[in-house]
């Protein structure tokens, strides 16, 4: 399995295309999008950034720095990537430095999104590290005049059998790592892993629990001033009048920035900026033009909009016929990211060079957008990722970066910090889109699904990369830039149709995606994208069909699945939960089950839940949840567990409580009073996560795999407890009570 790899340095430098026999990552190739290349490309993001020193740098003093174009969002990536590099490079974990997304220093890996980071960056780092190590060994072999086979690596040194050692720092020559990666690498045998797959404490947590510098909100460059934006009251509002005189005279105010409909104030001290913002907001006059849909009739409003219809999946077997048919419609409202820390950015414009510190998910696309907005070359902007609070997708971060850049330009030289207010984040962030799904299914006489029909109506689920036009500052400034035309995200990943194609095997199936370009409410990517609602719908409907068949929900699913890894997570979750066919929950409780494979190509997750429903008040509470997850080769078991626990709780909040509210003109859910999320009074008694590790298998993205199954599992448990099926998210206390009372 592990044939030796010999990388001849001369041939590598000459860009020789010699094929190297090695252990290969077949999985990585299978997941590449687009047409197969003429020459095999290196795996992951090495395909677009093939130079090894884009990823690994070794200094003469033996310091090793790892570069990733991805961002730490709180998932623990810094730690995971460090684990990967430490493992493949054979350096001590603690000795590594990791640099994340920075347009000056790291590769362009697009967005940290879509649960692609392990697959893109993790794979790239793994292979780059392995190849760097191989180069170092080859160099040592030359210098020590021994064969490469006889050498081993440990703790940043290459060691010969006779005990002679050379540190990596000694070995590395100036441009030695400036070579392109090979398509395949010799990776370590998972059975020998010392760091990968081990529970390593996260490297970012110590600072976060001791008040160290950790977030973009903590940046305080010398001479920094504080800015606040005054946002319009609604989409498209025009600033008709604003007397800024009084505000300009307020204590500490440095400048009022007015550019078309973009209005902001800058002050020396932060609270001065807040007070000036309030005064400026009071002085501003707006002409509002927004026409928002009727909130009480949102599904109908959505479906009335023009749509482009695509059949994305079809399978037909006329020999199989259904005899019993049911239909169901499921709906989801707009939902908010609701990041705990409102968006923030710092920007400084000196001598034609702009630096922006931002918690954007994509430093390169954001740089391009800001460059377009300011009409300056992208090369004159450096965009550095600094952590913010969890973003869960496209929140206000990119907009805050644009705000800061625009204001910094008006205040040449001084670093400007823009902090969004809570109300601004709630009202202006792009939401997760509202969706409608219609399902129809029939059973044959044997109780198996004979026919499956699934239709989904949705906006796009991403307005990125959208250039400048996707950012509020650019839309609002005088020479405004129009928002880009929305485009559907292509399959197999998909957007509104993510996970719309069922993973189950049905003899007859048809899946239709109704793509709606018109966006009456600002939307973009939110964690799991369409998968949250599509999995909620599919897995709720599977239970409805199981009920029709008189079958146990778990058994019913297994009957329609032949994929072994899917079956394994289902069986694991059921077993660990104590799921028994024909079980009966206590009188005020219900049991529910759900499963999905995120995007049908990322991590697998099954969730079994026990829910308690108070029949007098309708209040539903998650009592316990048991999850099983298969994410391929596990790098950080604790990080993975944390992600799945978090996904279950976050999804519980979305599913039981959350809906953006609005009137005819404005968003009205503008703080935690009006957009409540889960608090400690609703936290379950326990959540157990069982990991099925697959050593040697490709990494599968797991940051978004739990949300859909958790939602459906809850809905199924509530149906089990009450005998009533709820299909309209969120499953609020009032809706449950009305269903019980009906």
């Amino acid at each position, binding site marked *: 399995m592990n044939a030796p790899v010999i990388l001849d340095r001369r041939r590598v430098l000459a860009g020789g295309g010699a094929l190297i026999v090695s252990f290969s990552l077949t999985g990585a190739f299978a997941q590449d999008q687009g047409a197969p290349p003429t020459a095999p490309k290196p795996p992951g993001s090495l395909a677009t950034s093939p130079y090894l020193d884009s990823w690994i740098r070794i200094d003469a003093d033996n310091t090793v720095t790892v570069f990733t174009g991805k961002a730490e969002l709180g998932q623990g990536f810094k730690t995971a990537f460090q684990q990967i590099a430490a493992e493949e490079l054979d350096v001590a974990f603690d000795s590594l430095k990791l640099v994340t997304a920075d347009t000056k220093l790291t590769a362009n890996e697009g967005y940290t999104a879509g649960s692609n980071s392990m697959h893109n960056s993790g794979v790239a780092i793994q292979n780059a590290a392995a190849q760097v190590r191989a180069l170092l060994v080859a160099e040592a072999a030359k210098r020590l005049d021994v064969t490469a086979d006889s050498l081993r690596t440990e703790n940043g040194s290459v060691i010969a059998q006779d005990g002679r050692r050379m540190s990596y720092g000694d070995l590395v020559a100036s441009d030695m790592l400036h070579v392109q990666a090979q398509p395949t690498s010799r990776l370590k045998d998972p059975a020998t892993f010392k760091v990968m797959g081990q529970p390593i404490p996260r490297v970012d947590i110590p600072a976060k*629990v001791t*008040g160290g510098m950790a977030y973009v909100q903590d940046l*305080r460059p010398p001479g920094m001033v504080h800015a606040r934006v005054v946002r319009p009251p609604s989409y498209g509002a025009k600033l008709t009048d604003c007397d800024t005189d009084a505000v300009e005279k307020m204590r500490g105010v440095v400048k009022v920035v007015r550019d078309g409909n973009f209005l902001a104030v800058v002050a020396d001290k932060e609270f001065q900026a807040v007070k000036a913002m309030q005064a400026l907001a009071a002085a501003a006059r707006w002409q509002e033009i927004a026409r928002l849909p009727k909130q009480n009739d949102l599904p109908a409003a959505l479906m009335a909009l023009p749509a482009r219809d695509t059949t994305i999946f079809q399978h037909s077997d006329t020999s199989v016929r259904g005899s019993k048919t049911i239909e169901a419609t499921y709906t989801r409202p707009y939902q908010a990211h609701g990041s705990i820390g409102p968006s923030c950015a710092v920007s400084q414009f000196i001598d034609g060079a702009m630096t922006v510190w931002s918690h954007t998910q994509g430093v390169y696309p954001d740089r391009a957008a800001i460059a377009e907005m300011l009409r300056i070359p992208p090369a004159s902007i450096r965009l550095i990722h600094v952590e913010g609070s969890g973003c869960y997708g496209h929140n206000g971060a990119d907009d805050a970066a644009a705000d800061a850049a625009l204001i910094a330009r008006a205040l040449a030289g001084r670093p400007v910090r823009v902090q969004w207010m809570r109300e601004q984040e709630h009202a202006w962030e792009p939401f997760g889109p509202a969706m409608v799904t219609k399902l129809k299914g029939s059973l044959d006489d044997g109780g198996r699904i004979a026919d499956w029909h699934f239709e989904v109506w949705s906006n796009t689920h991403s307005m990125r990369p959208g250039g400048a036009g996707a950012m509020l500052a650019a839309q609002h400034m005088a020479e405004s830039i129009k928002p880009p035309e929305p485009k559907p995200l292509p399959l197999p990943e998909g957007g509104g149709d993510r996970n719309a194609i069922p993973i189950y095997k049905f003899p007859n199936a048809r899946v239709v995606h109704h793509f709606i370009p018109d966006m009456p409410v600002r939307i973009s990517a939110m964690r799991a994208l369409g998968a949250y609602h599509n999995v909620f719908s599919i897995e709720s409907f599977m239970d409805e069909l199981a009920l029709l068949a008189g079958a146990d929900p778990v058994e019913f699913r297994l009957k329609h699945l032949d994929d072994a890894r899917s079956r394994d997570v289902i069986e694991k979750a059921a077993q660990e939960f104590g799921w028994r066919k024909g079980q009966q929950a206590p009188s005020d409780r219900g049991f529910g089950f759900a499963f999905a494979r995120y995007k049908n190509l990322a991590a697998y997750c099954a969730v079994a839940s026990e829910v308690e429903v108070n029949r007098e008040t309708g209040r539903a509470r998650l009592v316990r949840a048991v999850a099983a997850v298969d994410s391929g080769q596990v790098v950080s078991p604790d990080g993975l567990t944390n992600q799945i626990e978090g996904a279950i709780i*976050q999804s519980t909040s979305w599913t039981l409580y959350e809906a953006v509210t609005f009137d005819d003109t404005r968003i009205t859910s503008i703080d935690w009073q009006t957009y409540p999320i*889960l608090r400690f009074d609703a936290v379950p008694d326990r959540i157990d996560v069982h990991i099925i590790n697959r050593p040697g298998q490709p990494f599968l993205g797991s940051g978004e795999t739990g949300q859909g199954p958790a939602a459906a599992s809850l809905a199924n448990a509530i149906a089990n407890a009450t005998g009533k099926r709820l299909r309209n998210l969120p499953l609020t206390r009032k809706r449950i009570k009305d269903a019980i009372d009906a």
Partner: protein
Amino acid sequence: MMTLKVNGKDHQVDADADTPLLYVLRDDLKLNAAKFGCGLGQCGSCTVIVDGKAVLSCVTPMVLLEGKQVTTLEGLGSNSAPAPIQRAFMEEQAAQCGYCIAGMMMRAQALLQRTPKPTDEQIRGELVLHLCRCGTHMRIIRAVKRAARLMDTAALTPASEGSAR
């Protein structure tokens, strides 16, 4: 100008009486732990301890701090010498993005100072003022219970931890 006592030290602060404590801590004293989450007293990210009690610093104007002692997370311990609550959160890896965590820890610290062996229900009841969007709740509860155990053993040693000075 007023004197503000933070983490045992006096600071001369130039802030108006109506300035919320949070801005003074972060901007004047350059302390990172207490965070701006909402500025409305709805999320708990700004929590610090004043005279032994947990307080939302974003809605606490400076006028209320005359002669009182403020303790922030930085005052409890450091990376090299972490307080039990800090050790507990590190050992439980009780954070995802971590933005809400400092506030949670201060609330928990205040609870543990007056209720050394809190029940699950008491912990949840105290923390209901705090929001965590990443869903780290289970670990946070485990970390608070762990801190209680650590403080229990620490109390056996002369240098007691975490009391408001």
